[in-house]
């Protein structure tokens, strides 16, 4: 039903609202006084509201960082929980300003879905969760297995590709939400549950007895996850893209939530430009020069956001892996501020 309403909204806004997709997003967010952020409402570590309605998660912190950059207030975010299949329509129709919902960057999404990916905030890959009792050691042993999967994901396509290229027989059972898919897997409907490896650890905790399940070591795809915005608004695109780059640069330069005030007095020109002490980088975005300071004060640098939500400071205990900085053998690399 939600899908139909969103689509109707899309058709009417697109049909009647003239040229709505121009460079207006920042202005309309400022006028509205709140950022509408499309997030996952159901995934531990990335986006999940707790019992009090406080949202936590890696992607959620990105929403807060953008709000802090614009309003100097990380709480001025309205989180819109979206299922995998509703997320693109929500972005296209303007219901949300930015989609930060562990969404894989692919060519077709970039070109034909009216959206632009601003960067990669998490390098992921698709894996499998199986019961230990099956004594399966590799995804290649899963021929003829029934696999539960969430609908409207790249996961669904990679799964079919993987089984076909390896000449394995597949039985897919598709659900609208990860919640239902995990429940069905847990009830024994499927032999395996598949999604991004980062999510599997969180989903494993949701099964009745997490110790009976194991994440297979195989990674069958590249899943670069990142924030996306609508086509046609370059200013807004730049802001969202550089929120990610600023957080990564902050980690690289050793600027953290705790030391950001002290670092403002640093002599290092790179730090001075990052924090807007030198130059007018922030104004060029349509914000103020110190917007990175506000973001770092609100959520910390990239490493802090990672550790708090996904790393050792969280129940998930995911290692940095590919998401370590390039200086430490990982892939996270941001262009310089200058």
């Amino acid at each position: 039903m939600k899908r139909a309403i969103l689509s109707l909204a899309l058709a009417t806004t697109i049909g009647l609202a003239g040229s709505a997709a121009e460079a207006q997003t920042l202005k309309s967010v400022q006028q509205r006084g709140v950022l509408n952020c499309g997030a996952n409402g159901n995934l531990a570590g990335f986006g999940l509201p707790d019992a009090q309605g406080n949202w936590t998660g890696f992607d959620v912190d990105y929403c807060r960082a953008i709000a802090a950059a614009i309003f100097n207030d990380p709480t001025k975010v309205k989180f819109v929980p979206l299922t995998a299949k509703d997320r693109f329509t929500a972005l296209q129709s303007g219901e949300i300003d930015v989609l930060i919902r562990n969404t894989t960057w692919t060519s077709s999404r970039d070109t034909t879905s009216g959206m632009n990916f601003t960067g990669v905030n998490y390098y992921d890959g698709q894996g499998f969760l199986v019961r230990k009792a099956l004594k399966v050691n590799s995804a290649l042993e899963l021929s003829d297995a029934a696999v539960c999967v969430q609908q409207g994901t790249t996961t669904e396509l990679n799964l079919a590709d993987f089984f076909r290229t390896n000449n394995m027989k597949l039985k897919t059972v598709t659900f609208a939400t990860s919640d239902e898919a995990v429940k069905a897997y847990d009830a024994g409907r499927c032999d395996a549950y598949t999604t991004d490896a980062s999510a599997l650890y969180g989903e494993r905790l949701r099964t009745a007895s997490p110790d009976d399940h194991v994440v297979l070591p195989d990674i069958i795809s590249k899943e670069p996850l990142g924030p996306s915005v609508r086509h046609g608004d370059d200013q807004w695109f730049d802001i969202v893209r550089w929120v990610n780059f600023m957080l990564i640069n902050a980690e690289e330069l050793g600027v953290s939530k705790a030391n950001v005030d002290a670092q403002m007095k640093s002599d290092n020109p790179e730090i001075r430009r990052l924090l807007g002490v030198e130059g007018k980088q922030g104004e060029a975005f349509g914000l103020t020069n110190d917007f990175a300071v506000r973001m770092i004060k609100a959520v910390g640098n990239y490493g802090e956001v990672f550790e708090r939500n996904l790393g050792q400071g969280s129940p998930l205990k995911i290692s940095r892996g590919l998401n370590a900085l390039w200086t430490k053998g990982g892939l996270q690399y941001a262009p310089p501020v200058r």
Partner: protein
Amino acid sequence: MADARGTARPQVSPINDPRWRSAIVQVLLCLVIAWLAYGAITNAADNLARARIASGFDFWNSTAGFDISQTLIPYTTQSTYGRAFWVGLLNTLLVASLGIVFATIIGFAIGILQLSKNVLVSRLAAAYVEIIRNLPLLLQLLFWYNAVLKALPNLRESITIPGGAVLNNRGLFLPRPIFGGAMDFVLAAFGLGVIGAIAFRHWARRRQALTGEQSPVFIVALSLIVVLPLVVFVAAGIPVTFEQPEMGRFNISGGIEILPEFAALLFGLSIYTAAFIAEVVRAGIQAVSQGQTEAAFSLGLRPGPTLRLIVIPQAMRVIVPPLTNQYLNLTKNSSLAVAIGYPDLVQVFTGTVLNQTGQAVEVVAITMAVYLTISLITSGLMNLYNRRFALKER
């Protein structure tokens, strides 16, 4: 006042003539609506192009690349989005048509039971109606699905049913019959049986009209349609073998597979809609005047034939229009399948295809057109039935 009939209409200018006025207003209104529609469509196309959202129907022949759990026509991950559409549509039609049959049977039974003189029976029927129709359907579907999954054993502890069927939480697996060549005789016998039964019924009616004597139409028809082909079947040496479902490492393959998603959806839809149909039937029967029953009794008819020959045919005239609504509701409600993983049209097409192509406007438009078409056809057929059985005033 003079009688205006038969005299010529007074000459007035077209501006003051109400016929002209209403015609002009209607033409103008049509033009305005057409202009608005044209503006909306071109504007939408412009904006889609500006936002670089793909439009058009080119995606129809692109490779889909995803798997579907239940397919009535051949489908692989290499099939097209168009093929996926047909798979989803057929799955919707399958569950809707079976659901309509079951809901009608259960609904009529419960509706008639509600009027039973036995207090226990009528109360139980009323309780069924009140409980089922007052709970949201989505909740019931999730309940049935999870109840089915939880109640059934795991793959490794499958229940084997005598005859080779296997039941577990992956579904019900039946042996698939493979018929030999001699099956043609059995089919021919069946065809002859049906023709014979129709002919006998025709003859029996005429005989009853002429002489008043009744013939055992039901028993004769049953033996012609069922027993005759059965005898031929046995005489031909039972020309059928079965492909048995076989246990693999993970799953059972072969045989006929009934998915738990399908069973839960069919079950949920039938039970839910039956509660509404029961109310429609009850109301319809109560709408028939009590005098009709009394008149039938006074002619010496027993309660059974009274209900069958006097009350139900009159009640049907009241029942059919709201019954049509229930059929339409059932078909539309089948789209809730998405919650329990049954691959119906909405799940496959409006869900996965829309998401993989990103073409919301086209996909939703097609889906709306499909449901509209199904609904119009259903209501057309029911109207046809209604017209045939409507009270004919002579």
